[in-house]
């Protein structure tokens, strides 16, 4: 469903070159820091109660008292964006961590043992890969009902193949290098080889992949909320706000949709820039 699933989430070379531009990286880092602050302290910073109706006019324009305007029910959009930041930002983190840990573990185990273990793991990964992420999320919603939990779990599984294929490839390449053979011949224990040599060699790759994966997870989760299957109104998840504001677009009041949309885009852009940087770092470790 997402770009993440197309090419193992790798960032094309162009983006890596962009990452060498220092100022761009600094801007991206500052933006992300701002987003994280919003996610952590959003409700404390909000000037109004996000769910309080008619703190301003219906579909009010941007003004000094409502810096992002007000929505169709007169709620303060800025306050709603702040209170929705936590779910919008942390849900993708959960997806990335779950899929990263599961996928990397599966990959390392498959590469280490090879044979039928690898075969079974490959088959599992192939089946998951064949079900597009959005379909898996919709299946999960049909199973467990609407809300964020089902899509988060579904996407964690849907992202497994990306992480797992990447890390399995990396692990196999690493295990095939002569230094692994040298360690065995030296009599170093398997545990030490796995945890002192193999896993640290793979970590940069996993971290880089997770950074990129965060952006995609955020887009996918917002899309699911947009479809009305994720977070439910009156929650102010950004995807929900974008969807709820659609009716007002035609009446000339785009604020309710456009501001959260802008935030989603800016966050993902910043994460991508950071991800390119992290990928360049990981590949530097590799050569």
């Amino acid at each position, binding site marked *: 469903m*997402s770009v993440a699933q197309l090419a193992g989430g790798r960032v094309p070379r*162009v983006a890596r070159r962009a990452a060498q531009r220092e100022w761009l990286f600094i801007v991206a880092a500052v933006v992300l820091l701002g987003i994280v602050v919003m996610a952590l302290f959003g409700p404390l910073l909000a000037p109004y109660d996000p769910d309080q109706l008619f703190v301003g006019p219906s579909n009010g324009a941007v003004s000094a008292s409502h810096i992002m305007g007000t929505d169709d029910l007169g709620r303060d959009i800025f306050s709603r964006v702040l209170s929705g930041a936590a779910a919008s930002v942390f849900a993708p983190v959960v997806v990335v961590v779950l899929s990263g840990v599961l996928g990397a573990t599966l990959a390392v185990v498959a590469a280490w043992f090879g044979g039928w273990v690898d075969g079974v793991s490959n088959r599992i990964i192939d089946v998951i890969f064949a079900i597009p992420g959005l379909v898996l999320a919709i299946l999960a919603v049909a199973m467990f009902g609407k809300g964020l939990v089902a899509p988060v779990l579904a996407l964690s599984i849907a992202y497994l193949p990306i992480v797992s294929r990447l890390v399995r490839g990396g692990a196999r390449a690493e295990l095939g290098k002569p230094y692994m053979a040298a360690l065995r011949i030296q009599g170093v224990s398997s545990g030490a080889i796995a945890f002192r040599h193999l896993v640290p060699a793979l970590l940069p790759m996993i971290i880089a992949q997770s950074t990129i994966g965060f*952006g995609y997870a955020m887009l996918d989760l917002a899309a699911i909320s947009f479809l009305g299957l994720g977070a439910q109104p009156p929650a102010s998840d950004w995807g929900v706000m974008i969807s709820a504001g*659609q009716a007002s*677009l035609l009446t000339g009041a785009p604020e309710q949709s456009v501001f959260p949309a802008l935030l989603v885009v800016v966050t993902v852009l910043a994460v991508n820039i950071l991800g390119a940087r992290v990928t360049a770092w990981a590949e530097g470790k590799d050569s």
Partner: protein
Amino acid sequence: MNRATIRPLLGKLGGLLLTLFLASVVIFAALQLTGDPIAAITGGVRPTPELIETIRAQYHLDDPIWLQYLRWLGGIVTGDLGTSFVYKTPVVDLIAPRIGITVLLVLYTVVLIVVFGIGSGILAARRGGATDKAVLVATSVGVALPTFVVAILLIWLFGRELGWFPVYGAGEGLLDNLYHLTLPAISLSVLYIAYLSRITRGAVVAQLGSEHVDTARVRGIPSEQIFRRHVFLNASPQVLSISGATIAGLFAISAIAEVAFGIGGLGSLLTEAAARKDLPVVQVISLMLVALFVVVNAVVDVIIAAIDPDSAKPRRNA
């Protein structure tokens, strides 16, 4: 393609069928075991025990799960896709009228993605300089522009401000369909155009710097011919495989554009069915999407194998 190429392809095909079978088991079993069909069928009315019994018998809910699965699979093979819990009509009658518009939307999107994605990628790789930079900036923003964001921007821009294109519904007749699907197709394609553009650029740049292209240059082959015969040909497997995965995935994500622009296609039906726990509909459409995904990827694999026979061969296990 000779036998050496076809043999591993057949092996791959077998793997795909197995994948498809396992996916169908997952789709069926997961929903059948966790869903609460009675509530979905009765639509929230508290059922009497007799009614529950009737329903369970009617939908064979008391049979063992594997028997239910076989009956379901047998039905799908013979064209009986089951009955919707919510509408109480055959699933076929729900899907049939909606499938055409989704296919049309996906095809429209594919054309946009292939033309602009591959085109801009090649342009950036060959021109370099300012063109390359402009494409880089555009695609950097593009890969952060998901369908729903582009959709609301387009609805705002065209629905309110410009009014050149319709922002709701699918229209009547092919030309009107295409006219109505323009904005949905754009909203679906932006992110993938950007992505494919980067992939294409990367693949072309890699080939331009490759040693066999050096050889062609030393031999004085005209650059247009080098590009056609050595650069683009060799970059195409990578571009094709990404294009294939994109197209395969579009059938699923078209749901977002369908919902945003009020188009009655497969995707919006699936979304609505999931929200209302209409299991037979969700199962059938999900399986269709998975099958499409697998088939499109398989077709692309065959095309790639025709260009590069070695791609079909399994790696030797060391």
